[in-house]
């Protein structure tokens, strides 16, 4: 038996992709913070105050405030969507391939905003933040959140930034859920919406994977009921949770191409429990790397929010058509053929509900072998869809503003 080629991990797939840099990036960027002193009563009834929101912006808001584009990050993303913090910052923001001068989210034309979600751990208030009542981190005393809570906070941030209407809200996966929530919760605020590789509600399968990941964290003795910030963190549990997540972001074909059964830096099976296979080594590497940047409690809260998300229950009395009856955005819906976490049928269900409401909707199922991760990988089709759609939105919004706002909403019919 011969050793496989060493596993070259050049690209960290998985919702937080290091795609090869492409084209020019935005100028040096800076993470900013907005503090909502009065906070918010979140869906479960608990009041959170103050709430801190980490965000970044790229480009500038034009005079008639018609060019704001809100980017919503996926489960474990952050507000650093594009550009570099400094000259020696090797890694650009997570969607640098999409955001920048001349790119589909063209920062010469659009004012692009991205914030870290409520409940996250990348600068926004979350379970690792200090509870003002106790002076200690919230841990598991943090309230369980919903996607709606995240969106309400984003709305306040936009008001703070002087944005009165979004040309578009764009996001994939859990970011796509936020896009959908935005368009239904605040229909007058959202001129167009681009939900990518997402769903209007998790399938039992998606909830199941999240639950296994949460159990991995909570079964780690170092989780300590969620109050671990004084001591060792549940790193092993979080790493396993990440490994599970990773599997759901890939596809059978992408794993076969990337790893197949190749062995990791060895010529033969070890007959012990070391990482024999490249795929094992890769998952371990990804798990360990994730632990360095992510908080286990945030992972619990964010996956729970994603599992709770149910557009039709929240806004349509159990009917997705009913939920979209509230919306007036123009939509561009995109799914990927090999995405089994949020399969195409879920996007089609949304498109169907939009059509039944006479909404202007475009849909494309993009052929891609990379599984759920495809939405973050360079893809010319996706680039063209987004830039063509946004250009039309720019024209239509301008036309509507010239007519004194007397549009027909996003109703095509």
């Amino acid at each position, binding site marked *: 038996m011969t050793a496989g080629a060493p596993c070259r991990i050049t690209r960290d797939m998985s919702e937080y992709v290091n795609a090869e840099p492409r084209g020019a990036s935005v100028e040096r960027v800076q993470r900013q913070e907005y503090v909502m002193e009065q906070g918010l009563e979140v869906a479960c009834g608990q009041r959170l105050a103050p709430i801190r929101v980490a965000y970044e912006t790229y480009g500038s808001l034009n005079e008639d405030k018609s060019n704001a584009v809100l980017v919503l990050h996926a489960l474990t993303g952050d507000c650093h969507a594009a550009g570099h913090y400094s000259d020696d910052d090797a890694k650009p923001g997570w969607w640098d391939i999409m955001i920048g001068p001349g790119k589909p989210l063209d920062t010469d034309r659009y004012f692009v905003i991205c914030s870290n979600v409520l409940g996250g751990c990348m600068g926004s208030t979350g379970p690792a933040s200090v509870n003002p009542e106790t002076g200690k981190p919230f841990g598991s005393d943090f309230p369980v959140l919903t996607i709606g809570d995240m969106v309400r906070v984003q709305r306040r941030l936009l008001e703070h930034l002087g944005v009165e209407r979004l040309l578009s809200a764009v996001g994939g996966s859990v970011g796509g859920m936020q896009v959908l929530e935005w368009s239904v919760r605040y229909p007058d605020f959202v001129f167009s919406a681009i939900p990518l590789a997402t769903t209007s509600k998790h399938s039992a399968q998606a909830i199941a994977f999240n639950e296994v990941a949460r159990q991995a964290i909570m079964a780690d003795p170092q989780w300590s009921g969620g109050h671990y910030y004084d001591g060792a963190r549940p790193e092993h549990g979080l790493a396993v949770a990440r490994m599970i997540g990773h599997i759901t972001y890939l596809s059978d074909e992408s794993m076969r191409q990337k790893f197949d059964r190749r062995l990791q830096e060895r010529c033969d099976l070890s007959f012990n429990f070391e990482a024999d296979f490249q795929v094992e080594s890769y998952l371990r590497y990804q798990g360990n790397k994730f632990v360095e940047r992510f908080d286990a409690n945030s992972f619990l809260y964010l996956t729970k929010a994603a599992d709770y998300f149910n557009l039709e229950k929240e806004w349509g009395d159990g009917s997705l058509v009913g939920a979209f009856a509230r919306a007036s955005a123009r939509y561009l819906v995109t799914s990927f053929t090999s995405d089994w976490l949020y399969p195409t049928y879920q996007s089609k269900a949304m498109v*169907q509900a939009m*059509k*039944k409401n006479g909404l202007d909707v*475009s849909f494309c199922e993009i052929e891609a072998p990379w599984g759920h991760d495809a939405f973050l990988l360079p893809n010319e*089709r996706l680039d063209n869809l987004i830039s063509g*759609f946004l250009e039309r939105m720019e024209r239509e919004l301008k036309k509507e503003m010239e007519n004194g706002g007397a549009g027909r909403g996003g109703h095509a*019919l």
Partner: protein
Amino acid sequence: MRFDLQVIASWIEPESRVLDLGCSQGVLLEKLTREKNVRGTGIEQNEAKAGQAIAKGLSVIHGDIYEEVRDYPDLAFDYVVLSQTLQQVIDPSSLIREMLRVGRRCIVSFPNFSYWKHRLQFLLRGRAPVSRELPYEWHDTPNIRVVPIADFKRFCRDLGVPVLREVAIGNHHYDDRGKTVTFLPNLLASYGIFMLGRD
């Protein structure tokens, strides 16, 4: 632009709502949007073509025409167009009924199978016709129906669907020029274009 699409475009009123089934890259919708300010939507099965149409700034759904047309409410459109796709449709009568449910008018264009060149080929060579209008061999054709203009008219009559306008044209498949054929259209025209209404 294909001549049959030019004819179809000329039949469509400005500012109307148009659904184009099998819209390809959206040539017709683009023209109608630009020149007649219509509110257009297309359905296209091919990912690359649907993607190109959306990238042009058109509202297009990548999907199957039978499935997608069902989701629209009654009378959602003024016109529903099916251009040069009828010959590939499995169940034409239910599709046309569905088109007339979601639209006030439906416009259908198709290659005329009883065009004299096709007849001649079959008569003289005894082989399935292959022409510029029907450029496929029997084994690789996507066309599953042969539709002479005369048969289509009878089909509409049997279906109880009134023909509001009809024209037969002579041109080549990708030719942007053509002429209408009024004398013996079932023999001399290469394409038929029909506007159907509700009964």
